[in-house]
């Protein structure tokens, strides 16, 4: 999930999710960056309206059934 968190961090900090930015963040977090993956994530996120996705994520019914132990 590192690539997703790093992307969300950038988005949240109002920075563009570019390959360089993503790599910087991941490297700073001590992640061994996989160039191809970075490219894939950046490309995929370009087609997504992140704000919209997050809005719906929050609006989601949090029927958080706690796992029955």
């Amino acid at each position: 999930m590192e690539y997703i968190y790093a992307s969300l961090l950038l988005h949240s900090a109002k920075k563009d999710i570019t390959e360089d930015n993503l790599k910087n963040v991941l490297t700073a977090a001590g992640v061994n960056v996989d160039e191809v993956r970075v490219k894939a994530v950046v490309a995929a996120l370009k087609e997504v309206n992140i704000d919209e996705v997050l809005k719906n994520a929050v609006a989601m019914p949090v029927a958080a059934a706690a796992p029955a132990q």
Partner: protein
Amino acid sequence: MIKMSLTVQQHKIPQWKIEEVKELKEKIKQHKTVIIASLDGFPTDKLHEIRKKFRNVMEIKVSKNKLFERAAKESGIDVSKIEQYLTGTNAFIFSNKNPFEISLMLSKFKLKRYALPGDKADEEVVIPAGDTGIPAGPMISVFGKLKIPTRVQDGKIAITKDTVVAEPGQPIPPEIVPVLQKLGIMPVYVKLRLKVAYHDNLIIPGEQLELKLDEYKSQILESYKNALALGVEIAYPEPEILKITLGKAYRNAMALAGESGYITPESAQAVFSLALAKAYALAGAISGKVDLGIQVPT
């Protein structure tokens, strides 16, 4: 000559004060975190319990504000930023821990005291069944008024059933306060109020020091949900996310099967459930007016 010695006389500071400032300076120098905590209204005997509990983590010193201010100034602390907190009776906490951690530790350590008239209960106050040792007398009517069942046994009042006299947050009936003391029940929490922390040249006001862990938890949850949602949106190939994405794809498929009436053994349930849901909705909409000869679940 005489004049000079007079001047010295005027500025003469008692030796103990000099010693104390020196000690405070040492402690400031040796610790990354200094917290000023208010002792106004704080039972001093409880300070001892805190000291005992946290002696490996922090030192607590009660001192005069003026002396602390002098020590702080001589240690290079910008006193102008903390002098507003140097009023009333204060304890000074020295530690090498992150001040937020200190704050958490102190808030988790429940110190209890006896109730005073007018106090609210911090936890459920139960008068336990059993002998009270209180001689039968006017107290019987106090118990009666509070609906605490009693009987007299050997001239003493005995409670016959555990009885709650105050829920958390409720005021404690003042009449019962002496009884609580007699029974050793301490239903009120005391907390050291942290006024300000000085740490790594940062001044952190007390209200900021109180960490709301529940908020952190819900933020973590929200962040995680956001990450999953974003991951699902781009079908991020990671098992954690794929599980959800697969479920979404499957539900999409079922929805499409249902809406287009595409029946397979797998989709039949979805198709007919949808059709039935619609049929029942329609039946429900007119069931008040028409006898359909069926039972419509509502």
